[in-house]
């Protein structure tokens, strides 16, 4: 917004972007898009938003949101994820969710399926409070967890809990393209009633012979399949697993077991894994400083729990931006890449990647990495 926009190298700009360069002279210091937003939030180009068009409860604690994305959306590949901005208690949070619908949807909408995790306020907020008609800021679809386009493969999906979403999207996409190969799917859930997207999965399994679904309930004692993932179980349910391309998504414990199993069998090459990335770093109980890494400068330093990060940077020979050196002017604001820092004024710990850090009044609380 502040700098004159640079033309994108390569390719002439579209007629719309030429026109908006002109109309931006009327809208300065804002952009035309800021005024279009007043008419329809889906027409914006300075940020992308999606309108919640439907909410659907899958289980008692999982909900599917159908979102209509704005004009600049590009189609996703089945298995990719999208960043979603969630306002909760006045603050803006960003979370990443896998798109659970197939790209072949007829109405240009997409869905995300969110499970309320214990103690995670944001997923609870999505599952309980988001309503039809809300607008949520979204990013573009990203990620390299998708099926190859041209190659003919026989996939095996190993999923658990809300890790079902990429597999669901992929299988649906294959069905929509009418090229569903022989597919095996192991899905773990605590109980029968807990299976996210369970009804649709069972319907697909009943309708398509080539889709072999095995639902395994880890907490139902009297159920025959009540075992956690193991090589023996895999042998029993999908004997040819070593010849298949494997796509796994779920909680860390499952992925660890799967990785180990494939390593022992010597076929890790076939294994594709999508991990849930934790947005928060665990706060060390005894925060007594730690290693500080300045990502842009490539400088590493030691920071103790009382020394402001600005001082740590200066002592390491850097000259980062700063002003008042006491937390009023925000000249020193930078982004937390990872780790934890503590606000020396309040003792509050920042541990969410992407938080704004005032380096002059924050010190390391454990290891941390800053975008400086």
């Amino acid at each position, binding site marked *: *917004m*502040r700098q*004159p926009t640079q033309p994108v190298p390569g390719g002439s700009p579209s007629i719309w972007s030429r026109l908006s360069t002109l109309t931006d*002279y*009327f*809208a*300065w*210091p*804002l952009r035309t898009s*800021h*005024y279009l937003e*007043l008419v329809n939030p889906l027409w914006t180009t300075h*940020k992308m938003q999606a309108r919640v068009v439907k909410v659907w409860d899958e289980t008692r604690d999982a909900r599917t949101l159908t979102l209509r994305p704005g004009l600049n959306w590009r189609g996703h590949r089945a298995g990719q994820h999208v960043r979603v*901005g969630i*306002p909760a*208690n*006045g*603050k*803006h*949070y960003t979370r990443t969710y896998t798109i659970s619908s197939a790209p072949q949807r007829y109405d240009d909408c997409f869905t995300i399926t969110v499970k309320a995790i214990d103690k995670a306020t944001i997923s609870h907020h999505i599952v309980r409070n988001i309503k039809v008609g809300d607008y949520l*800021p979204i990013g573009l679809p990203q990620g390299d967890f998708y099926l190859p386009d041209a190659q003919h493969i026989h996939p095996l999906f190993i999923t658990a809990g809300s890790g079902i979403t990429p597999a669901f999207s992929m299988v649906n996409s294959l069905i929509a393209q009418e090229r569903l190969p022989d597919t095996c799917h192991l899905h773990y859930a605590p109980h029968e009633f807990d299976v996210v997207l369970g009804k649709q999965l069972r319907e697909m399994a009943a309708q398509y012979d080539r889709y072999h679904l095995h639902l395994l309930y880890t907490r139902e004692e009297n159920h025959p399949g009540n075992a956690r993932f193991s090589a023996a179980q895999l042998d029993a349910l999908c004997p040819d697993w070593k010849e298949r391309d494997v796509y796994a998504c779920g909680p860390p414990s499952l992925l660890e077991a799967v990785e180990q199993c494939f390593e022992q069998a010597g076929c890790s090459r076939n294994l594709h894994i999508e991990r849930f990335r934790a947005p928060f770093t665990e706060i060390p109980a005894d925060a007594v400083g730690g290693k500080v890494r300045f990502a842009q400068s490539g400088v590493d330093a030691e920071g103790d729990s*009382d*020394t*402001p990060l600005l*001082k740590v940077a200066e002592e390491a020979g850097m000259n980062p931006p700063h*002003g*008042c*050196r*006491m*937390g*009023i*002017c*925000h*000249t020193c*604001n930078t982004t937390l890449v990872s780790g934890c820092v503590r606000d*020396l*004024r*309040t*003792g509050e710990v920042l541990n969410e990647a992407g*938080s*704004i850090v005032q380096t*002059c*009044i924050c010190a390391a609380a454990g290891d941390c990495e800053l975008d400086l």
Partner: protein
Amino acid sequence: MRTHQYPVDLTDEQIEEFGRELDAIRDEVFDDRGERDRAYILKVIKTQRTLAVSARFVIYASLFFLPAWGHALALWPIMLSLLGLGTFMLGIAKILENMEIAHNVLHAQWDWMKDPEIQSNTWEWDTMSPSDRWMHSHNVVHHTWTNVLEKDLDVGYGIMRVTPMQPWKPAYLLQPVYFILLMLLFEEGVALHEQAIDDHLKGKNTFSDFKPLLKRIGYKIWRQVAKDYIAWPLAAALVAIPISFYVPFSPLAVFGIVAGANAVANLIRNRWRRSTINAVKTRPALPCSAIVMPVTFHSHPHRCPAPESSTLLKSGWPGVPEQPWIFRVTLGFCSIFRRQCCPFRIPIMAAHV
């Protein structure tokens, strides 16, 4: 009994207590933030943008009531009242943007929301001064050295004598004229309200030192001028050219009407900003946003080493004794800083909090 070196008649306990009271206000404000505030700022922003764009179209609409059209409603009174309404709306929109939205956003007051659209380091405001330059001259210089003579450029803006401590010069005889000019051209004044420029006029640096700075300010000024005095009037004039074959009214006059309306809107804004700032800066009241934030430095020095390590606080500037920032600012708000102490004492201040 005075046991400390500060120029106030308070015991250490009273100072501690004062700090605690200010901290309590701060905590109360911080704990209260939430969804209500987010809804408020989003509503103000939406209202402001709607008002601004409607104002522009009301100004355009007034052109259809010029007597030259010859229809029954084409009368000067109707045209002028519409034009006046549009201009007034635009002025209000600019005041809202500058004072209620941008000033606070640029103070980082809304950064806690982490909304990428409402952040101090990306917000650009509707005035000639670039945001980051204003953040420097206001957040850094003015709020670190509030009312400290020769440090705070906001004291007299470098052109007026507002305290007996400033030595008198014959040039100050024209002060009433400067004042009125500053009031009218406040926007331009703020854009050029730069320490570097002030230093240059005193011969402390060379032109090349702040040439990049001037370029940057120049770009912002150009875009502001392009919007209010070229784009909007020109669009109206271009539409007026074909119409002028049927309606005897010059497109140039149309250009002038729209540009004039925009200029008046800017004047309304300048006038408003100048008077609010006067009100804030000449009264011994404490604007909370400024004082609430840094109070913890005073009452919890063990938690924050910054003031001790800061060179800003130990300036050898003449007439500024070494004392914590919080006191300097508090005294500064009381009145223009005097060598030893100020006429309004801390207890009066506390009553104002």
